[in-house]
């Protein structure tokens, strides 16, 4: 299962049963699928599932509006986390 599918599965089972018909580019927040408390739960889940950290200033529509946005954000954060653990070049 790819990251977008995993996120969709989590949203569908743990945040809203109303998201059965959404695609990768559907706005999760403006279409009334999720209430505002969902974003905080989603972030906690993303942080623990993908071992990433979401900074306050990263909590934007550009990163979280659609499944595609979230997937790309997670991929970037995972890549950053890996590069942060590599030893710095002399």
């Amino acid at each position, binding site marked *: 299962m790819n990251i977008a599918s995993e996120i969709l599965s989590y949203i569908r089972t743990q945040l809203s049963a109303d998201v059965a018909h959404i695609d990768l580019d559907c706005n999760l927040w403006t279409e009334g699928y999720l209430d505002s408390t969902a974003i905080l739960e989603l972030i906690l889940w993303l942080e623990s599932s993908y071992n990433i950290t979401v900074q*306050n200033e990263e909590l934007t529509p550009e990163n979280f509006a659609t499944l595609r946005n979230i997937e790309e954000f997670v991929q970037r954060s995972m890549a950053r986390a890996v590069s942060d653990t590599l030893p710095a070049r002399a």
Partner: protein
Amino acid sequence: MPLSNLIAETAERFAEKTALIFPGQSISFGSLYLQSRQIATRLQKLGIGPGARVAILHENALAPVIFFWGILASGAQVVDVPCLAGIQTVDEILAECNPSAIVLSAHQHERLLRAGTKSLPGIVLTEAPAPVNSTIRSYHSLSEIVASEPSSATLPTVQDSSAALIIYTSGTTGRPKGVMLSHRNLLTNITAANSRVGLTSDDSILVVVPLHFIHGRMQLLTHAMIGGTMAFSEGFHFPQRVVHELAKYQVTGFSGTPYHFYTLLERTNLANIPLPYLRYVLVTGGAMHPDGLISLARILPGVEIHVAYGQTEASPRITYLGPLEVLGNPESSGRPLPGVLVQILAEDGSELPPGTVGEVVASGPNIMCGYVSGDETISQKIDSFGRLHTGDIGRFDHHGHLYLAGRKSDLIKSAGERVFPREVESVLDMHPDVRESAVLGIPDRILGEKIVACVVLKPGATIDADELRTHCLKFLPLVRAPREILFTRGLPKTESGKIDRRGVVAHFNELRRAKAA
């Protein structure tokens, strides 16, 4: 005075001034008034006027606000239906209040048609022409009404004592309760509240709460009264964006529940964004911990902090605490508003003196007309003296400040939402693997209270907590669903066999400790 006069009088004084700003859209008070009269004229032609009801099931947007004022101008009653309510709840609400028409967003329209909702009224009002051909229903769009109806028709007058607004809120039995508020209820309450907060036409506000909450309607009515501009946030999902909206719209005010303020404090850089126009914030919809109020004062220096306490049945404000007293009495809910009498009653109904804890009871012109279901006295929400029993426990000090100390009822307040356990338990108990359940609220820094559940499964059942939550989400929005579910062999019971609510709290904490060990 009917509420529709608020917009008529303000349109006369500030015809060109911007009344409402939504992302990409705005409207002046003058246009808002004229369009509301055009809607009222159409409703009148459809036979809708005093005594009739028109429901609104619509996310925050410009069109439903224009319809709101149009419905009031027609003399009909507005029925606010919560946007995130499950289909079953929407059906129950529509079946109970039997509206003649409904205002629907495209999303809600599609959702209700897909679900085959039985109680959908025959007249549907939408922003744009609906792409449907129906022989069962007549569709009327705002754009078509504004293009064709006159604004000068004679409209009916309504009695101040008649219901203007019906707001659905959680009921003790698990079924939603329709709170009927009259023109007088709402007008006296916004007037009394504003005599304390002191807003003028120079004020403006950023709105983050849904308008179907009394909190949202209060802001709408107050700003119509004063001629203040309302800017609507794109949503509280992205709290950092809300901070930028405060700056962008240069609003003087912001009103939120403790959930909103804690989220802004903990998930944004509120302290680093200059907000030179922000004059005040109003905390309502639940008690904020003194630490939170102190943090707010530190991060927003020079911004007045106002606190209000109330409930939908009181239209909604009961007490108020002003900026000069907030930091000196951060645990207080303030003093009663002008015209509102607040008493502390003992179990036997006698009034208790300052310093003694009892039930908080309120009376005055702001107390609701009743529930749509008509059981406000049977349920003892309204007593024989017409007093509202809030279900909150509290005491007065010798200076007349109210301090809340808990609840007599099982009410849970989570993220500003009012939730009675029975509503959630009935959903849990519907699952074939569940024998019984008990739902409770446990303290949570951001949400105020977190909804959690202790569940007893039937022998041989294998369902896990995630699956049970998925089941709940088929019937409840996330904000009303349990965020943590723990399984147990049995629930604490009273001698009469009922669930021992206090015992359940201790039991839940034991289960949690055992799980963590």
